[in-house]
């Protein structure tokens, strides 16, 4: 596993291997590249010259104390917040800081929110149907119907998220953990290249957490994943490379052991 304090080179195209990337120029093996991102809210620097790169097929865990800028970082990547400075490149050519949320999603970045955000009044099936990769312009949506390939892909996702018995249930009636899984399923339906997962196991039972970890490990390689999580036991189970954020920039980066033994990290975070 490569370890780099500076994160801007292409050292990470190692164990994961490369993934076929249609429409996304990732010739250097990097799927996401944040360069010198700064965001401030009323003088408070939520992100301070943050630079970070994620490799194709990588599973990256991001940790950091409250207010370190983890969620703001996701907001910037998904277009919810515009950075004051810096650029975010998705692949080599797509600058997402100039795109809308919908365009970024269509380009291939999916996001799971901290609080499960699903369509509570729609059935589980319809939740997946709506998030499915398709032409999402008004006119196409008016006249669209499900092809058998699409139905199969929904059925397959239902199986992955273990909700195949609940396809017709109203999503609002699911348990908290099931909602988290449904949201992950919705992300999968979008067929994203990069998944951003904000506290995906919050509120899950141990069993569900365990299965979520397995799911993420199986997704890595096919997709690139960025997982923000507070649950250190979960991180320990899935982490290959960890980035520690502190006060809006990268404090340390490396394997679990390296990060845990880093004096800076111990000072601000682990050794509180």
């Amino acid at each position, binding site marked *: 596993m490569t370890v780099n304090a500076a994160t801007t080179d292409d050292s990470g195209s190692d164990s994961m291997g490369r993934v076929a990337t249609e429409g996304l120029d990732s010739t250097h093996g990097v799927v996401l590249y944040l360069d010198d991102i700064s965001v401030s809210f009323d003088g408070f620097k939520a992100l301070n010259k943050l630079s970070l790169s994620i490799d194709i097929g990588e599973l990256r865990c991001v940790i950091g104390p409250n207010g370190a800028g983890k969620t703001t970082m996701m907001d910037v990547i998904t277009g919810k917040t515009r950075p004051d400075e810096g650029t975010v490149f998705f692949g080599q050519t797509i600058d997402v800081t100039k795109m809308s949320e*919908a365009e970024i999603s269509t380009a291939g970045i999916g996001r799971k929110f901290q609080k499960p955000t699903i369509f509570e009044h729609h059935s589980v099936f319809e939740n997946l149907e709506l998030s499915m990769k398709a032409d999402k312009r008004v006119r196409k949506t008016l*006249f669209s119907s499900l092809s058998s390939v699409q139905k199969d892909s929904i059925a397959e996702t239902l199986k992955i998220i273990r909700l195949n018995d609940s396809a017709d249930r109203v999503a609002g009636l699911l348990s908290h953990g099931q909602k988290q899984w449904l949201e992950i399923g919705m992300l999968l339906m*979008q067929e994203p290249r990069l998944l951003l997962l904000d506290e995906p196991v919050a509120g899950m039972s141990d069993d569900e957490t365990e299965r979520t970890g397995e799911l993420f490990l199986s997704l890595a390689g096919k997709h690139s994943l960025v997982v923000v999580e507070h649950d250190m036991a979960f991180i320990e189970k899935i982490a290959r490379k960890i980035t520690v954020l502190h006060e809006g920039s990268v404090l340390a980066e490396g394997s679990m052991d390296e990060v845990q033994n880093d004096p800076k990290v111990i000072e601000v975070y682990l050794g509180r």
Partner: protein
Amino acid sequence: MTGGISKRLYGPRGWAILALFCVAVFVVMPLLNLAVPPESRFHVSAYWVTLLGKIMCYAIVAVAMDLIWGYAGILSLGHGLFFALGGYAFGMYLMRQIGSDGQYRQPMPDFMVFLDWKEFPWAWWNSDSFWWCAMLVVVVPGLLAFVFGYFAFRSRVKGVYFSIITQALTFAAMLLFFRNATGFGGNNGFTDFRRVLDIPIATPQTRMALFAITGATLIGTLLLARWLTTSRFGRVLAAIRDAEQRVMFCGYDTVHYKLFVWTLSAVICGIAGALYVPQVGIINPGEMSPANSIEIAIWVAIGGRGSLVGAILGAGLVNGAKSFFTQTFPEYWLFALGLIFILVTLFLPQGVMGLLNKKKQ
């Protein structure tokens, strides 16, 4: 659950009710009004034809309101404006149809003669053409809604802020139309219509024809709205209502969706207004008053948000009650309306439709 998410347009029962409604509007009403002699106790008088025609116009507006409020979650408190604009657009044509039969025996409308105008204002260009005015009925409310919606939705104006701005919009338009100089008859508006398509407007036959056209429009609007809300488009709308951000992160440009349904809703209101004016015989800026627009929202709330049939029921029930109250206890109508609204909000969050559905289960 709200949203009425279903894959079929209507089940057999729904189609049967719709067929019954068609029989009532296109067969029973014309027979009882035109064929049954006035002395008979089965005769339906002109008063009832006009009242029911008027209520059907309101029901069309209620469906339009339900589309944006019940499904897309956008509460407009200015929908009376689009209704009135459609009414004014068609009213211009009706004013031109009066010809020289006005009180002043002049080729121009009476109010223009009274103001000593020699020429028509620019907005009246080509207003003697039926098709031109029919086009304005659709284009004027549609264009205003599109431009207003474009800026509001793009700037992500939402919730109560959006509602208040729509309220201000209709209020501003009302003040504008109250002025004589605006060119639409000031506070008197348009009235005293004589003909439509050169046919005398006050005959029982014309009245019944207008009634039937309104009924057909109501059915058409209902089916269009039903088709929209049962398509994937409709599911996206309901998703926008429940979790707009998630919809955006799913890759949908929600501005386009909201703009489409918002503009469509305004156009439907304009058409309803155009049908309303020849039947009621008057259009004035009072139709743009904020209270009128709020009442539209109340119909839908009472009938049941997110149910199209509920919206129609709501418009029918409230306006039926209104015409009863304003005849028997005119001073108590607003109290009664307020009370009904409070009771429905407290005890029937899903409106009358919610009550009916609960009974069924």
